[in-house]
């Protein structure tokens, strides 16, 4: 069983559409994250939830809305998609351990045409 799973793995869509990426973790972790890796390979945190509460909200357009129905799920909804949203989006989870080690999903490659 995959520890952190994201769907879909690939998503191709038109500008202006609304899309969602789902993430689930079966590790029993308290904290989940969304990261964006852009074309320059720069990994940047977008959001972090701890026990369904938002704890990190970086400077991200409000077209991006995370939703955490329970601590095992963190979904990312994106409205009015733009070309610049094309990237790989990684979901991750962690327990509140000393090292803060993250467990990542395989990534969801979003292409906006």
């Amino acid at each position, binding site marked *: 069983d995959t520890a952190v799973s994201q769907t879909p793995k690939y998503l191709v869509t038109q500008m202006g559409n609304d899309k969602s990426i789902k993430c689930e973790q079966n590790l029993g972790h308290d904290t989940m994250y969304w990261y964006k890796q852009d074309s320059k*390979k*720069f*990994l940047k*945190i977008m959001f972090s939830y701890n026990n369904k509460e938002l704890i990190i909200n970086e400077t991200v357009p409000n077209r991006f809305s995370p939703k955490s129905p329970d601590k095992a799920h963190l979904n990312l909804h994106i409205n009015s998609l733009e070309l610049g949203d094309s990237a790989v989006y990684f979901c991750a989870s962690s327990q509140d351990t000393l090292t*803060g080690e993250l467990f990542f999903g*395989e990534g969801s490659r979003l292409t906006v045409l």
Partner: protein
Amino acid sequence: DQQVKQNSPSLSVQEGRISILNCDYTNSMFDYFLWYKKYPAEGPTFLISISSIKDKNEDGRFTVFLNKSAKHLSLHIVPSQPGDSAVYFCAARFAGNNRKLIWGLGTSLAVNP
């Protein structure tokens, strides 16, 4: 402004030799440093970490060295194996409540048989 820098985008090493990956940081508020390894089409996986109060941590073939005065850390892999070929990310964690990770851009390591 990048607070965590990996100045070498790529590194090529012969199998059996030592691989040294470098990372520099600018912020004294980091309390933990982590190395992640990433294969194509997969999410990053945790490799090894070091607390800011230590100067060395070793795990099998992997050793991380921290030089706080120089704000520099390095990952040594010895002996290098072809399966080590991947992108290696350095990440630094802020001390405090949200423990946000700041990532370098990665170094692509190729270990040649």
